């Protein structure tokens, strides 16, 4: 991936949020983008968990990189990622039991989110700790931004509410399809389309 050469924090931010956005450019982490985006509150908590995990695991991998033997490099990265995900899971279980119940197995499945492993391997493995933390965090934020947009549309049309607060009047007929995972496919498709069109207009090289 070409973005490993990027060293400037501002450029990293732009790359991770826009030109190399994990969801609509790299199309990573789609499983959770389909599963947890029908209510904004759940999406918010879930994506905050991802931001935390990506940032902290990138930081830890970067701090430990010179001690990690090459052969067990990926095993150790997975261990670090799993460690932070389990921390998130434990904290949710203890202090936000309702959200934890709604998210079900998806918190645990953050471990398998390719964005996190991708950043650890592509960036943190060869960059300084603080910069890796920033890269992990902005990648997480890129993921969060897109998921929140999807959740916004899905909750509004599927339940007539935002963050659980009713927006449309009682008589509103909810779009049942928006509550089910397939609608996220359509929305992600639309976002990819819109995103690429804008990039094309701005003359960015479309990947």
């Amino acid at each position, binding site marked *: 991936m070409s973005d490993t050469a990027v060293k400037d924090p501002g450029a990293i931010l732009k790359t991770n949020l826009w030109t190399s956005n994990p969801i609509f450019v790299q199309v990573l982490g789609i499983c959770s983008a389909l599963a947890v985006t029908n209510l904004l509150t759940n999406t918010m908590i879930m994506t905050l968990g991802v931001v935390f995990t990506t940032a902290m695991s990138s930081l830890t991998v970067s701090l430990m990189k010179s001690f990690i*033997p090459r052969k067990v490099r990926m095993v150790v990265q997975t261990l670090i990622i799993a460690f932070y995900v389990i921390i998130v899971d434990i904290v949710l279980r203890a202090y936000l039991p309702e959200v934890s119940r709604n998210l079900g197995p998806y918190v645990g499945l953050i471990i398998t989110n390719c964005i996190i492993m991708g950043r650890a391997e592509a960036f943190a493995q060869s960059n300084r700790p603080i910069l890796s933390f920033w890269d992990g965090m902005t990648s997480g934020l890129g993921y969060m931004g897109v998921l929140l947009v999807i959740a916004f549309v899905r909750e509004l049309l599927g339940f007539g509410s935002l963050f659980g607060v009713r927006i449309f009047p009682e008589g509103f007929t909810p779009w049942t399809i928006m509550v*089910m995972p397939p609608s996220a496919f359509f929305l992600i498709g639309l976002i990819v389309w819109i995103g690429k069109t804008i990039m094309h207009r701005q003359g960015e090289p479309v990947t």
Partner: protein
Amino acid sequence: MNKQSLGYTIVFSFVVCFAFVFLLSITHQATREQVQLNQELRTKRAVLRALTIEFNDDEEVLERFAEIETVTRNGIELFRLTKDGETRYAGIFGGAGLWGPINITLAVDADVETIIGLDIIDHNETPGLGGRIDEPWFQRQFRGLRLVDGGVQLIRDGNTEGEDGKADAITGATGTSMSMDRILNQTLRDLRSALGGEA
């Protein structure tokens, strides 16, 4: 020291695993009581809701729950509440839903002739369709519902308000409605045999 050697790799892997797992165990231990408390609260809240007892916060849940006796009948654990000379029983039951198990709390009067209330503890039904068994309108229908031939029926069309032994099913969720029908009637049979009435 050669970082790629077998010895270093083994020692390194062991130390790293140990350190991370150790930290996780500490976090787990530190929050264990809180997690257990959450689970207990969830069950207690469900029992109170089924018995139609109002509460505002967690403290009140514990207070109200203290007034309830736990009894075992026929191997089934039941919660008994005697208020104003009337005895009511609630129990935790479950059955297969459309996608996964549905666990409920159901409260009845001592003769199992009237349902006092219903609460859904957990389910995996489709959000917005079968998942609507979670909503107050669905559960409220069962409050004070008199049974007909010892059972209830979930009806597809029309308005069942005020009719004995009948409740509205959920539109667009036939599978879940049928499961609920089955679970409720099985639960009522279980409660009847536990409380010693006619089976």
